[in-house]
């Protein structure tokens, strides 16, 4: 399955047929720091994602100057 990562934008292929939490663990991503989006919808860590699907892992952490 395809995973789109942001900041910087890139795509990686990983095995599907497992929970989002396992995909995040393989990629070393803390689940509390990202939104996971599949087909325009948010999915939770326990959602199963399959081969042939595509997900976006969108970071939520922003920093820098105080707003």
């Amino acid at each position, binding site marked *: 399955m395809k995973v789109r990562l*942001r900041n910087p934008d890139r795509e990686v292929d990983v095995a599907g047929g497992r929970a989002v939490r396992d995909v995040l663990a393989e990629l070393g991503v803390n689940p*509390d*720091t990202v939104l996971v989006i599949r087909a325009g*919808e948010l999915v*939770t860590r326990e959602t199963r994602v399959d081969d042939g699907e595509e997900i976006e892992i*969108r970071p*939520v*952490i922003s920093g*820098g100057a*105080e707003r």
Partner: protein
Amino acid sequence: MRCTRCGAPAVIEVRRHNAGYCRACFEHVFRGQVERAIAKWHMLDADERVLVAVSGGKDSLALWDTLLDLGFAADGLYLGLGIGSYSDRSAEVTRAFAASRNATLHVVDLAEDYGFDIPTAGRKGSRSTCAVCGLSKRYVFNRAALDRGYDVIATGHNLDDEAATLLGNTLRWQTEYIARQSPVLPAKDGMVKKVKPLFRLSELETAAYAFLRGIDYVVEECPLVAGNTQLRYKDAMNAIESTSPGTKSQFLFGYLDRGRALFTAADDAELTTCASCGQPTTGRFCAFCRAQAQILGRRLVTPEPQRDGSDGAGGRGNERQEAEELADEVLPAELYGVEAR
């Protein structure tokens, strides 16, 4: 996972509450947290004019969206920072949001209105890029709110922002800064009241809210932010949170409920007005005017003559005195924050 409130399939999990929510319930809970923050901290009255500091990011747009939905008279202020395509995109999404909500957006451009942009400031000034950016934002927001007659400035600081700031100040035991940290900074001496209605909500929640509301926000990180200290503190807190959900909120809310009273505010410096721009400061010139003069290669001029007969601005003899003044100056955190120091 099922929604904790209604049992429908959940789209977001909030681990510190050991809860999951469907879209409708999450939006309800999100707005409830904002209402709770506003009520408990007396942030906003129904008849007050609110100026929302909007950057085009998830937090400020989610805040503006929520305040409008809650019926507040909330207008936006966008500050153009001149950071290439990042700023172009930020301005684009902010304008699009304002148009979609038929809301009033004020725009100030740092280069056009003050003569410098942030990349230039980072190269020519003595402050870090993030420090001069934060200083510029706080200065411009306050000045714009005063000039335009707003009662309150609302910013999109979230739970993660506030917890990271508290961690940073605690690690260095900057007790006077710790004492001043609050979701509400009252108006005083030329400084407009500042409020942070999102301080009870994590970055994950503000991002999820913006996404679920269909708000187009800038996902890209500022290209100048790499290595920022605040980000390192957030990483540290997220590492702890991942194994102990709720630590961040316990740290921040515990401080606000029980810790804050243990610190005595040392912010008793008397404020006067900047000799250059008239904004509040504790010295002759405010931090923004000093930074601007440094970046533009100008000297600041005091209109009143000094006792030695000089104009107070020129002359090598004054440089040491000026440097010492700047080093000693205690800047009001309400306006200039920690990074400007």
